[in-house]
């Protein structure tokens, strides 16, 4: 689900960067109030734990294996704001150091995995907790459902972002991404329940940690409800009417803006003497290519002669 650079149009990337940055800033403010100076070691080490935890896999059949992503587990154990910061750290380090997901696409990846993953988990888990009225079964059913929904909804968002960027048509990307992640989500749900069962036996007090700091929890709950509802309605619509999403976007007049590089929006662009200009551009292109390849070659040559 880590989108590399190049797959999203600049407008979609920048838009999601702004949203994610806003949510992360908000989460940082909440955390500072709740945890104070304690938060740096706690968040840092737990982010490292989630990163390492993603290595824990189990074989499903043949060569395939399922592994943990951790947004739901972090949300249940630490509350939404801390989970947003932890997932932000994990996803950012993955992009920056391990090239798992792009840097310009990082805004979108943060939006899918940190923002959507956490808010949807929070919404599903607390709703089921409320329905269960404090029975311990609520923890496990809620954990499994939160894990499954967080993965599936995030994958739908990912598919819609690709469709909006014109990289993958909605009627293919939505069922494909959604379908695969409905299966991956089961693995996530099973591991999350396993982890919760272990913690329930070993340190029951930790399971209530996430609810200890419910400041702004209502807003997250509503956000999760809105995101889950919107994506659950929007994606089948978009895939059933492949042009539906485009139609809406076109009505709003932002599809072209989303697809085109920013400066192609400049209207009525005309170049005098187009045939000559085209020829000139080709010649310039070839010359430029030769020039820069020449630079690359001479750099390589210099390096070699220095070693010799």
């Amino acid at each position, binding site marked *: 689900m880590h989108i590399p650079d*190049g797959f999203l149009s600049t407008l979609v990337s920048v838009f999601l960067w702004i949203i994610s940055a806003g949510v992360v800033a908000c989460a940082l403010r909440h955390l*500072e109030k709740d945890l104070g100076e304690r938060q740096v070691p706690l968040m840092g080490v737990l982010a490292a734990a989630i990163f390492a935890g993603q290595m824990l896999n189990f074989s499903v059949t043949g060569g395939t294996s399922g592994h943990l992503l951790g947004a739901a587990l972090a949300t249940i154990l630490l509350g939404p704001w801390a989970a947003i910061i932890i997932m932000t750290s994990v996803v950012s380090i993955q992009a920056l150091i391990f090239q798992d997901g792009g840097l310009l696409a990082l805004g979108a990846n943060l939006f899918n995995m940190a923002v959507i993953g956490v808010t949807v988990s929070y919404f599903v888990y607390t709703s089921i907790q409320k329905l269960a009225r404090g029975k311990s079964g609520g923890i496990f059913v809620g954990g499994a459902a939160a894990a499954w929904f967080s993965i599936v909804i995030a994958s739908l968002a990912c598919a819609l972002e690709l469709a909006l960027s014109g990289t993958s048509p909605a009627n293919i990307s939505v069922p494909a991404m959604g379908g695969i992640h409905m299966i991956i989500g089961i693995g996530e749900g099973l591991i999350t329940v396993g982890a919760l069962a272990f913690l329930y036996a070993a340190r029951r007090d930790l399971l209530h940690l996430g609810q200890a700091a419910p400041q702004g929890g209502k807003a997250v709950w509503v956000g999760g409800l809105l995101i889950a509802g919107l994506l659950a309605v929007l994606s089948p619509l978009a895939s059933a009417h492949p042009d539906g999403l485009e139609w809406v976007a076109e009505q709003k007049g932002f599809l072209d803006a989303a697809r085109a590089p920013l400066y192609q929006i400049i209207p009525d662009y005309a170049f005098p003497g187009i045939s000559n200009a085209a020829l000139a551009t080709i010649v310039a292109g070839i010359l430029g290519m030769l020039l820069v390849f020449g630079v690359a070659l001479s750099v390589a040559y210099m390096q070699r002669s220095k070693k010799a």
Partner: protein
Amino acid sequence: MHIHFLDPYRPRTSPVHALDPRVKLVLTLAYILTAALTPIAAWPVYILLFSIILSVEILSGLGVGFVLKRAALSLPFVLAALPVIFTNGGKALFSLPIGSWTLTVYAEGLGRFFSVALKSWLSVQAAIVLASSTPFPDLLQAMRAIRIPRLLVAIFGLMWRYLFVLVDEALRLMRARAARSGVIAETGHRSGGSVTWRAHVAGGMAGTLFLRAFDRSERIYLAMVSRGYDGEIRVLPMAAVGSLSWLVLGLGLFLLILLLLFGFFWG
């Protein structure tokens, strides 16, 4: 502590390694942004962008093979863009009859697909060069310099410090599991238990890891407090960006803007 297999940093003595990390971070981001802004099917610009990153790779002494091998790891995502070849309107190139289906390949879709693949391939190379030529602590300071919130950078730093400790912890857990119970399917061997049982075991391991990390963070916090920690991570300030680094930054940005203009006239 040992040098961890996960750490992508490769120490070399090269001008790329020696460049100010702040300049390197900004140039990498600018390069990726340029690749993103370049119009679909502006092939000459892609070639120029490739020759730039190729020069940097050679200059860095990391080895072109090393970078390209790592870059190949991110290629599978290209599958997500594959359908666009067959659905994007415009001029039909040719049709492939598959059973009762016919797949029509469109020129515009093909151009879009290869543009996306190239952009992503170029961007990932830039990110690899950045990560392999810059030690992480320098990267943290560069992040501070481009105004990423202080708290977030401090958390990144602590995460990095304990990443390897906890990855080792996770590997120990997996070795213990491999020694005692359901081995991850090797060829010819069946894993123990049912799938749900295996998932439950993996979940228990995740819970254990979380618990150990939680306890560890408490100890780290107390250790930090006993050494005078008051909520502020203090680092030595970086030297001002040197005039040579400014020159490299200016030239790099100028080159990228030229490329963008070139792409603009082309597209």
